[in-house]
């Protein structure tokens, strides 16, 4: 299947007469007149536009989710005080500025859901898989641009449904982002388990559709549409990461859908998949024989791979960025690929480590301990390879490089605490305490965010033909890096002391109330970091129109193919034929002319051996 035939001819045929342009003055103006605003920017089938749609929608949700964390941190840090800002945003859910517990639980639930799914899945993998797969493997677009467009729009509708759920009279879903039944199944058990929960389930179902459409497209595109010479082992590690991310999503998201469908049945059709022997609101329910633990198995069969769906793209981009800005080949390319494979396989075999204290068979628990701790091995290999990549490099401290270094630091810190939680005998005590909060926020929240920020700063010039402002980028980095540690490091101690997560107020607890001052400090830090993120948002949007213009095709002197496209690539990416690839993506070496890199499309010189 040729790449040329898979794209809509209306956008491609105009390119042929232009030939290859080395400088970017040529842009896509020549087909702008053909495309209406709606087909170009709204219902676009161009993977580059779709990726920006994912990113901007992701930014929107990150602000919403972040603001929610500010609200509940106000409650956690200052349980005695009232805040006008709460009643301004939340109305009757915060009467006289005091957050209602129902809404507190609604906020933590939606905060978790939107950050995990809408920001760190759609906003991260959706953005960069879309943007980079065709550009880095040398394809004109995705295998199916139309399904790709649908993928975004299903995501947008999923978001819309979730957003609506914030405004229903009984409040949004409030059973935690895991929404365990029976709490989430019985509207008598909690206000958030009313219509808010239905909307949550519908939104998730739509999101699964979006994720599947996207994921299948990514896999097919990577396997079938690589340009001539782009063998699998010449692909940048970003592409390997996106491939396995998509595989994880395609194999695990359907299980979440089944969990959601069964839960809908339990809620409305009188079935008992998850319900048994329940007495609630003064009456005994007729349901017997179901198991709430079944839901947890189904949920975590997605839920754990989901962690890697979030992490792998960040790992891939960090690899690419560390190598490029260290001016040195990535160390252990094959080991990096093998560890990605190892993580992908193991990701499916560890889900029940979230369920050590559900009363599961101790033998089964033992198996999951073993498999869980195995993941430490490929993860450690990756860290050592990153360290060796920057070893003896020639490091340019660009903003993306700083975020990539921060990513490695956070990944180490958060990954190591996984060794505590993955070991069931320790998890008994640490389960559902602040130790867990600290662990997963650092390892898959903040560090994935760092991978994402690194990616945005690095590929912004390719997305918009302009740079983001460096000074603001550096300020953003230092606030976020220092702030993240200040917020989450002390939480490990709270967790070791047994302080449970998802508590609205600790003041009546003899065992946990000594952390009042600390919680205040954490809340203040969280609020500062939140405003620090607005610097990024500001920088992003201002730079789209006002940023310093990119004047060379390859501003970072990188090797991968996206930097051979015009500064403003049109739909179809390359004006002339797609370049042929002759070498791997990390040929940072003496090019014989005083340069320190040889891009992938440069043919091998006589006598030169390919990597």
């Amino acid at each position, binding site marked *: 299947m040729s790449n040329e035939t898979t794209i809509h001819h209306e956008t491609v045929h105009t390119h042929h007469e232009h030939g290859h342009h080395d400088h970017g003055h040529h842009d896509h103006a020549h087909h702008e007149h053909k495309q209406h605003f709606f087909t170009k920017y709204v219902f676009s089938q161009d993977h580059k536009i779709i990726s920006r749609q994912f990113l901007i929608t992701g930014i929107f949700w990150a602000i919403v989710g972040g603001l929610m964390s500010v609200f509940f941190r106000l409650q956690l840090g200052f349980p005695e005080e009232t805040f006008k*800002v709460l009643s301004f945003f939340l109305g009757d859910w915060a009467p006289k500025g005091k957050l209602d*517990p129902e809404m507190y*639980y609604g906020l933590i639930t939606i905060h978790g859901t939107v950050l995990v799914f809408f920001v760190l899945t759609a906003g991260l993998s959706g953005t960069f898989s879309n943007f980079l797969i065709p550009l880095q493997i040398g394809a004109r677009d995705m295998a199916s641009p139309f399904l790709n467009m649908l993928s975004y729009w299903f995501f947008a509708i999923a978001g819309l449904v979730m957003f609506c759920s914030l405004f229903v009279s009984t409040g949004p879903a*409030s*059973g935690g982002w895991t929404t365990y039944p*029976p709490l989430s199944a019985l509207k*008598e058990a*909690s*206000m958030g388990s009313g219509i808010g929960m239905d909307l949550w389930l519908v939104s998730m179902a739509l999101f699964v559709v979006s994720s599947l459409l996207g994921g299948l497209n990514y896999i097919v595109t990577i396997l079938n549409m690589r340009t001539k010479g782009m063998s699998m082992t010449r692909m940048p590690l970003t592409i390997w990461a996106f491939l396995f991310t998509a595989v994880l999503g395609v194999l695990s998201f359907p299980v979440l859908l089944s969990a959601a469908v069964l839960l809908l049945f339990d809620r409305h059709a009188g079935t008992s998949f998850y*319900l*048994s022997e*329940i*007495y*609630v*609101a*003064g009456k*005994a329910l007729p349901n017997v024989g179901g198991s*709430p633990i079944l839901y947890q198995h189904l949920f975590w069969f997605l839920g754990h791979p989901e962690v890697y769906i979030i992490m792998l793209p960040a790992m891939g981009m960090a690899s690419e960025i560390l190598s490029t800005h260290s001016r*040195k*080949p990535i160390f252990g*390319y*094959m*080991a990096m690929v093998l560890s990605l494979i190892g993580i992908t396989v193991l990701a499916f075999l560890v889900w029940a480590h979230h369920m050590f*204290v559900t*009363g599961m068979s*101790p033998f089964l*628990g033992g198996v999951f*301990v*073993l498999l869980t701790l195995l993941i430490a*091995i490929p993860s*450690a*290999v990756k860290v*050592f390879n990153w*360290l060796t990549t920057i*070893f003896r490099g*020639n*490091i*340019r*401290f660009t903003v993306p490089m700083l975020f990539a*270094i921060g990513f490695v630091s956070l990944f*180490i810190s958060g990954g190591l*605490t996984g060794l505590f939680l993955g*070991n069931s*005998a*320790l998890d*008994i*005590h640490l389960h*559902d*305490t602040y130790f867990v909060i600290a662990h997963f926020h650092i390892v898959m929240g903040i560090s994935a965010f760092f991978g994402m920020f690194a990616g945005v700063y690095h590929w912004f010039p390719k997305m918009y033909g302009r740079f983001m*402002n460096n*000074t603001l980028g550096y300020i953003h980095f230092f606030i976020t890096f*220092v702030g993240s*540690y*200040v917020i989450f490091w002390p939480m490990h*101690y709270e967790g070791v002391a047994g302080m449970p997560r998802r508590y609205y107020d600790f003041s*009546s607890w003899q065992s946990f109330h000594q952390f009042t001052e600390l919680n205040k400090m954490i809340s203040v830090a969280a609020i500062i970091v939140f*405003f620090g993120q607005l610097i990024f948002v500001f920088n992003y949007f201002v730079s789209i129109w006002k940023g310093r213009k990119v004047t060379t095709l390859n501003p970072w002197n990188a090797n991968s193919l996206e930097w051979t496209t015009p500064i403003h690539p049109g739909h179809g990416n390359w004006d002339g034929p797609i370049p042929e690839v002759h070498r791997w993506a990390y040929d940072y*070496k*003496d090019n014989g002319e005083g340069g*320190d890199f040889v891009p992938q499309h440069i043919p091998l010189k006589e006598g030169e051996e390919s990597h």
Partner: protein
Amino acid sequence: MSGLLLILLVSLIFVVLYQVSRSSELLVRIKGEEEFDLKRNRLLSYSMLAMLVAMMGGIYACHRYMMPLMGPEAASDHGKTYDFMFVVTLAVTGIVFFITQFLLFWFAFKYQRTGEKIPYNFTHSTKLEMVWTAIPAVTMAVLVAIGLKSWFHMTSAAPKGAMQIEMVGKQFNWISRYPGADGVLGRRNYTLINDNDNLLGLDWNDKKNMDDIIIPNGELRLIKDKPVELIIGSRDVIHDVGLSHFRMKMDAVPGITTRLWFTPTITTKEMIAKTGNPDFVYEVSCDQMCGKGHYSMRAVVIVETQAEHDAWLQSQQSYYQQNHAATNPAAPATTDSVKKITMN
């Protein structure tokens, strides 16, 4: 008013930031990019060292501040196993943490760009990669071995002669049940639950229920050095019996009976003396999100001597007597949550 000021302040900061960032970009153009880049690169390389130092200093300060606030020593034998394992894991991860963080920031500082340079060609090394795959593998094997040994011990069947107490969760409190003189908990059936006179749905056809004692606030009375097995259930949604001082935890799942056992080793009175805190009390926290009152789902554990326990047991009336003696009509135990829901 203060809100308005805050908004003004924040917008002001943004304006300042914007101006600073714009002027810095102008500066680049005036000074020439290459020279400016090198200068900035040097400055940022020092920030790598600064971050390393700040991180280590921060960890030390945090540790100094937090340690006095941590809970007392583990109050059960399982807890001692846990504490040992925790220290081993902390040592292993601590060593890895300090080495890798140090290398990360040190390399970043040391290998800063100093101008054009031929890249050092180091793309792989089988020997090195074998070593650093093998070391984590062996370490993991050790951690898994210690972990599984403890895990299988903690989750084994309770020792014979362990005292049995049932702990049942509901929105939003715990209910505990003691087997009474016969030492056996009778059958219960959720359809018989009634908030007025049968909190747990005891089946009165089962004679073993007649002497069972129910404590509606979930108080747990344990005996020092005597193993206790908790039989855990839930009336409505999933709860979790969290016993942080004993380092134990187990979900309470409707429709399923779960169990945990441990041996308390320090009485409440001894712990008060040890901690010097007259208010010290062992607490049961609900550790599984269960609804709006989740954070208030608290019960108290009292660890006492056998003699104290016997005396307490003597003073208790069985739940049957409490509710079926004609002179003693039970007080309706309507909780906040039930009220709220019936109002809706």
